[in-house]
């Protein structure tokens, strides 16, 4: 226990002098890094615009209110497209994620040495790249439109779903699998009767959770040209039609809240 002598009396301290020095230097380093980063940001900022910001914000606000309510008649189709992008993307992703998850889980993978790392690589690489970047890439490959959006959402979701699913597979109760094995079941029968019933609730939960996130993401995919309500948003932004922008933002907010509510209800019913 670190104790310091102070005028003949012993005083208890939480850390030794060396430890507190190390911590102090750690904090100093952290602050220095932050200040350096802030300097870089500040250098590439036009401060005149920043001082002018309240006026600009006020200006945009007066232009954007009230929202152009009758524009909503033109938003029906984009909303339907957005819903399709999210839902079809989630479905495709789930179909692809299930085999990846089984290959990645330690207790079901056919080969922990060769196949598992490949499955994990698929999970990491699809997960760490945002769906907007996937959309950008797919538009360059297969052309703009809803289809590119569906595929972008599907690819982005594979990693997420497969990761959660393989963690669920690794956490299953092994005794049930053993019981099925003891009856002389084949490999596929063990899957169907020993493993699948245990992960089905988790699977349904993941599906709905990801669908909710995908609704969020598909509303902005149109910004890069991948269909949905984002297309209308970027078109309105480009012509500075602020009343339309504010209406679209309200619609997006409503869609996000509804999907969150639906997903919370469904997950509550499952678990």
């Amino acid at each position: 226990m670190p104790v310091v002598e102070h005028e003949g009396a012993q005083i208890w301290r939480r850390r030794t002098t060396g430890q507190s020095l190390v911590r102090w230097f750690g904090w100093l380093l952290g602050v220095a890094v932050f200040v350096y980063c802030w300097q870089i940001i500040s250098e590439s900022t036009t401060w005149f615009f920043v001082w002018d910001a309240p006026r600009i914000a006020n200006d945009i606000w007066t232009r954007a209110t009230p929202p152009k309510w009758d524009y909503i008649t033109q938003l029906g189709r984009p909303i339907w497209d957005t819903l399709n992008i999210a839902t079809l993307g989630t479905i495709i992703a789930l179909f692809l994620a299930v085999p990846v998850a089984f290959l990645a889980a330690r207790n079901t993978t056919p080969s922990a040495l060769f196949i598992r790392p490949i499955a994990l690589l698929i999970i990491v690489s699809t997960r760490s790249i945002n769906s907007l970047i996937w959309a950008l890439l797919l538009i360059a490959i297969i052309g703009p439109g809803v289809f590119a959006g569906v595929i972008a959402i599907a690819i982005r979701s594979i990693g997420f779903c497969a990761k959660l699913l393989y963690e669920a597979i690794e956490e299953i109760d092994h005794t049930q699998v053993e019981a099925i094995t003891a009856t002389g079941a084949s490999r596929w029968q063990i899957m169907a009767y020993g493993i699948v019933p245990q992960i089905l609730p988790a699977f349904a939960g993941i599906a709905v959770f990801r669908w909710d996130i995908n609704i969020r993401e598909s509303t902005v995919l149109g910004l890069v040209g991948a269909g949905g309500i984002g297309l209308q948003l970027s078109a309105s932004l480009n012509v500075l039609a602020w009343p339309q922008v504010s209406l679209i933002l309200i619609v997006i907010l409503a869609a996000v809240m509804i999907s969150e509510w639906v997903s919370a209800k469904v997950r509550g019913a499952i678990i």
Partner: protein
Amino acid sequence: MSHPELDDLLGKGWRKPAFVKNALLRWTLIVGFIAYLIAAYMTIEVDWGRVYEGLDRGWAFVLAFTSPDFISRWSDIWSGLMESIVMTVAASVVGILISIPIGLGAARNIAPLPVYVICRGIVAISRALQEIIVAILLVAIFGFGPLAGFLTLSFATIGFLSKLLAEDIEAMDKVQAEAIRASGARWTQWVNYGVQPQVMPRLVGLSMYRIDINFRESAILGLVGAGGIGATLNTAFDRYEYDTAAAILILIIGIVMALEYLSGIIRARVQ
């Protein structure tokens, strides 16, 4: 091998129980789902000719991953990457610092009702708006550059971290906090000695996770002019320079993996 007498004795054979128990609900879900799929499939326009043409380009992109070109646009990649990292660091520091008081205010068991309502309101707004939409608005207000990206990421961090921190505080052990209060501590001392030690490990873990997310998000903010690697990536796609794009994507994946590994170590140490 059927044994009619035995079957009569035993009654019906065993069947796997259905996942949704209520038969009417199950069939409504299935029929509704199929009807939706058909409707969605009918309304999506896919230009299969264009997709087929694109397959060559897709394959060229996959091949580009085997020979990524880090060299010819290295200065652009480097400045974009630095800007992304700088934005991530600065926004994470500021976001975490601001989200701690808001998290305290959004916990019902320590904040009075008016403070609670205000803080929950801030959290709800920040969570409902997606990063990219916030970035568009902030770019319109503050002009192009990393400042808009920095503000966007800070704002998003506040919503994420405050909500989870508040939930953790609400779930804390009351006994410890009461013991501190019984010793006659002031409110600040009570928070510092009764609440903070209980939520600290989770706060550190969540902060690490949020840094990871912030970096991933900073990669797309460039698409709308808010600074970072996204602008470079967008240009690479627009010019069909797949080898440069592949190099950038590999760098992003590598940094995300490194961050995830690092946060795994730190979380294991604090918990």
